[in-house]
């Protein structure tokens, strides 16, 4: 297949074929991280900027390592050091960065559509590293990669997504990709965290965690976004934990080979209990490892060649 996109903005935009192509490419790149010399010259001379307007350690580091393992140069700009505090608009910041001729800009922003805005005006490849409650495409790709690795397939699975569905870009992107491949999705969380009309996406809503995870092949836990006012929607994290914290008891009722996922960082004891996070079903660290491979694949496909 021929890769034609300049940018990676949404999972919803991608065809099954494109998604699988990224996953296949990622397989080739995954081995590099296991070698003694964890570097290939593929993107030598390319420059990748990570422009993060929201705090993030995991995603930024993952992109940075991915770029470095491909020999690209990386520059990190985070909100504390960016011009945003000086009143410069996002577009101006981006245009200034583009003058320094980066090949790709990975942007994380608290507002939906910010990456799309940049993609429309810049020649650089734009990678959406998470835009508000909208999408987080590379997270959904690494999740799908992990599911394929552990389950041997990406279709016909029963997947429970648990937490603040309404404000989670991880949930949205995963719903789009998992639905695209024909999986059964159950969205679970307190009703205040389930967006209206969610059923129109072809998912089932279940408010009771026990029912949601029963016989599930995959349990995807979401982070309670304390920093994003997540607690406005629930009386307290303590009460949330009682109702929606994933325990070993829940996992025992799921499919025998269930996997438990979490995009991190985890609030241990709130949405996920220690014995689950560290238990045999947990693939949380695999997700992190696969994240590097998937992001290498994305960087390679977007900026590996000339248009």
């Amino acid at each position, binding site marked *: 297949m021929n890769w034609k996109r300049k940018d990676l903005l949404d999972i919803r935009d991608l065809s099954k074929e494109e998604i699988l192509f990224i996953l296949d490419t990622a397989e080739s790149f995954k081995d590099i991280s296991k*070698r003694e010399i964890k570097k290939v010259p593929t993107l030598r001379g390319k420059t990748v900027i990570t422009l993060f307007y929201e705090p993030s350690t995991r995603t930024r580091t993952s992109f940075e390592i991915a770029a470095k393992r491909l020999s690209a140069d990386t520059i990190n700009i985070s909100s504390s050091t960016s011009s945003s505090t000086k009143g410069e608009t996002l577009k101006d910041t981006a245009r200034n960065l583009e003058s320094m001729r980066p090949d790709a800009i990975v942007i994380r922003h608290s507002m939906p559509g910010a990456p799309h805005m940049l993609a429309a005006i810049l020649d650089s490849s734009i990678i959406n590293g998470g835009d508000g409650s909208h999408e987080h495409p590379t997270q959904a790709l690494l999740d799908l990669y992990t599911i394929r690795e552990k389950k041997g397939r990406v279709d016909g699975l029963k997947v429970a997504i648990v937490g603040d569905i309404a404000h989670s870009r991880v949930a949205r992107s995963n719903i789009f990709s998992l639905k695209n491949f024909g999986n059964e999705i159950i969205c679970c969380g307190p009703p205040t965290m389930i967006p209206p009309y969610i059923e129109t996406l072809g998912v089932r809503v279940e408010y009771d965690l026990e029912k949601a995870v029963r016989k599930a092949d995959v349990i995807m836990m979401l982070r309670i976004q304390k920093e994003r006012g997540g607690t406005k929607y629930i009386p307290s994290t303590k009460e949330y934990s009682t109702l929606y914290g994933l325990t070993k008891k829940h996992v025992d009722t799921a499919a025998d080979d269930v996997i438990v996922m979490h995009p991190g960082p985890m609030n241990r004891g709130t949405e996920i209990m220690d014995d689950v996070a560290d238990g045999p079903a947990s693939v949380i660290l695999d997700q992190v490892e696969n994240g590097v491979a998937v992001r290498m694949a994305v960087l390679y496909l977007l900026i590996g060649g000339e248009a």
Partner: protein
Amino acid sequence: MKKKVILDKKAVDRTITRITHEILEKNGGSGSLSLIGIRTRGVYLANRIQDKIKSVEGMKPPFGVLDITMYRDDISKLRSPEVKKTEIPFDVNNMTVVLVDDVLHTGRTIRAAIDAIMDLGRPKKIQLAVLVDRGERELPIHPDYAGIICPVSEHHEVLVRMSEIDGKEEVVIVKT
């Protein structure tokens, strides 16, 4: 399109047999020998050589598959060419690695392959076996084993067809 057959199926097999013997002769048997085929057709050639070594020596040397895409020097001029898996399931350190490819032309593929292998470890030796050496090198690279030396002009292409993927087996020259 004009085409000229320079090796037919039988000749291809004969040539591979000869290369195999040369490899064994030069290295004094298959002791620390390993074979790495360069995708795509080098892999099938390396496979054949491995089989023939087994019939002579009674044992198969370690065998690997190399995709050189990540090491190409012309990536930025192409549209993100598809990257396939490199599968080298043995330790290359202190091995004599015989790189196998179908056609040797500019030498750039081999340069990439050498770099790729060096990133995996430090082999004792790297040797190069090709079915066809068509000349016109752009880098100082020379094959240790060449099935047939066949200089052709830049307006021609040498195509190796292997039964595993092409349905037939021959080496032809076609005008581009």
